[in-house]
């Protein structure tokens, strides 16, 4: 029997979670994933609950994934997006959240361009807050689905060597992944041009490489990040072609890693830039599975935050 209790009220980042809590989320996602193969892909556990997706930044896959996850648990889902709401009339984050709470929402998923926005909201709102990605800070649900995928493929994360390649600077996914992998005992190498590696990243406990070929030796998992052109205010590398020549994962470079190494990408992928098409669609790539696993992980998060892990009442049988 799993004795771990999930004591968190919010899911703000991997930094706030203990190793045991991360493992509880991952193990709860296993039965959630089994639901996908049934004729009725829905369970009634969150019937009558309302989930609000409050997304201040564009997102298709994360928002849709949270939405499907909530619906498979029978919750109702409301999507609030800036262009169609009072946010465009200047309502503040807290006021928007308070308004949604007044409509009896039970949990709010928030994505915001400002790092720390979900934490700010968590201190002021009464319902549980899930961080759907905040600025350059964290993206916990993505990291959890990555950890789940690695665990599914490799059995255990302990002692695995994982290379994260590309735009570490702008990537909240990489920050959450690094924290999570370290908590579960894996080793992380970050690889990219110096301009895309944040200063002091070593303090998170990873080693830094600038030459991809040096970093790939003995690697179990290659994690490619998207080149986030929309976040670059000035050019951080000479050209996309040059980036691709030096850092794209292709068949030849994949051979430098372990024979059974897998290739991951959080999506959306710039095909041919971070990853060559032959690798992206090979059986070494887990990209589509990551999408499927994302739903299972988000179901586990909803389940645990909305009661599945709350403190215990006296036994009544």
């Amino acid at each position: 029997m799993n004795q771990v209790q999930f004591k968190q009220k919010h899911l703000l980042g991997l930094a706030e979670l203990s190793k045991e809590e991360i493992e509880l989320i991952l193990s709860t996602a296993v039965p959630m994933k089994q639901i996908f193969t049934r004729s009725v892909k829905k369970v009634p556990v969150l019937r009558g609950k309302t989930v609000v997706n409050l997304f201040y930044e564009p997102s298709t896959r994360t928002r849709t994934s949270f939405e499907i996850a909530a619906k498979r648990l029978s919750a109702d889902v409301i999507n609030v997006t800036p262009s169609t709401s009072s946010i465009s009339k200047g309502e503040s984050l807290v006021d928007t959240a308070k308004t949604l709470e007044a409509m009896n929402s039970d949990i709010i998923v928030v994505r915001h361009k400002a790092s720390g926005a979900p934490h700010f909201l968590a201190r002021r709102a009464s319902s549980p807050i899930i961080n759907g990605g905040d600025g350059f800070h964290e993206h916990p649900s993505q990291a959890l689905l990555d950890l789940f995928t690695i665990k599914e493929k490799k059995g255990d994360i302990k002692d695995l060597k994982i290379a994260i390649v590309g735009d570490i600077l702008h990537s909240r996914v990489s920050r959450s992944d690094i924290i999570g992998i370290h908590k579960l005992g894996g080793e992380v190498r970050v690889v990219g041009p110096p301009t895309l590696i944040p200063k002091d990243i070593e303090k998170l406990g990873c080693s830094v490489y600038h030459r991809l070929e040096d970093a790939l030796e003995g690697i179990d998992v290659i994690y490619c990040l998207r080149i986030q052109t929309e976040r670059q205010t000035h050019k951080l590398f000479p050209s996309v072609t040059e980036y691709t020549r030096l850092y794209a994962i292709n068949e030849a470079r994949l051979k430098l890693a372990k024979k059974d190494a897998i290739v991951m990408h959080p999506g959306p992928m710039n095909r041919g830039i971070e990853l060559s098409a032959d690798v992206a669609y090979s059986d070494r790539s887990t990209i589509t599975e990551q999408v499927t696993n994302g739903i299972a992980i988000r179901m586990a998060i909803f389940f645990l935050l909305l009661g599945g892990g709350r403190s215990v009442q006296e036994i009544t049988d």
Partner: protein
Amino acid sequence: MIDRPIQSPEILMNNTDIERVLLRMSHEILEQKDHLNDLAFVGIKTRGEYLAHRFVSLVKGMGVRADFGTLDITLYRDDFDTLGDLTVGETDLLFDVAGKRIILVDDVLHSGRTIRAALDQIIDFGRPAKIELACLVDRGGRELPITANYVGQTYQISSDEYIQVRLSEVDGEDQVIGFSKDHRGAKGHKYFSHSRKDLNN
């Protein structure tokens, strides 16, 4: 049938009793001749799983092949809001339930709410030909209109008394034990060392 206060803790069934009762129930299940080619035993976790597994072996000994599956009903509970500390286990119904005669198996039948949840869950997998219920112990106290087709032993006990089924697969021995209300919640008692989920029949 026991219809008197329980002397606590009282051993109501030992391993021989349980063995005989399961054998008798297997015979009763096979006496109903319909859908004998489509028989499946589905155990409700935790203890129902082991009982269902025993039924599969018992009917196999009588020449009838049956499918086996398990249910974890956590996601179908009606008391999700008031209970905490739930862990979701895995549900394994790897055979196609459509057209099957499913014998749902649980250790103790009490309020009937677990069975209601299990019925809902099975139906989400498909449309069985029929679902029947087999319980090792029926202790009364129903809160829903549910009854078992096959019962090992019936005890009419009061709501503050408690019956625990212990099975060798998880508990190291086969026993059915009754507790009076004085024993309820007796902390540190060896029979109460299980997780609360196990106590929730």
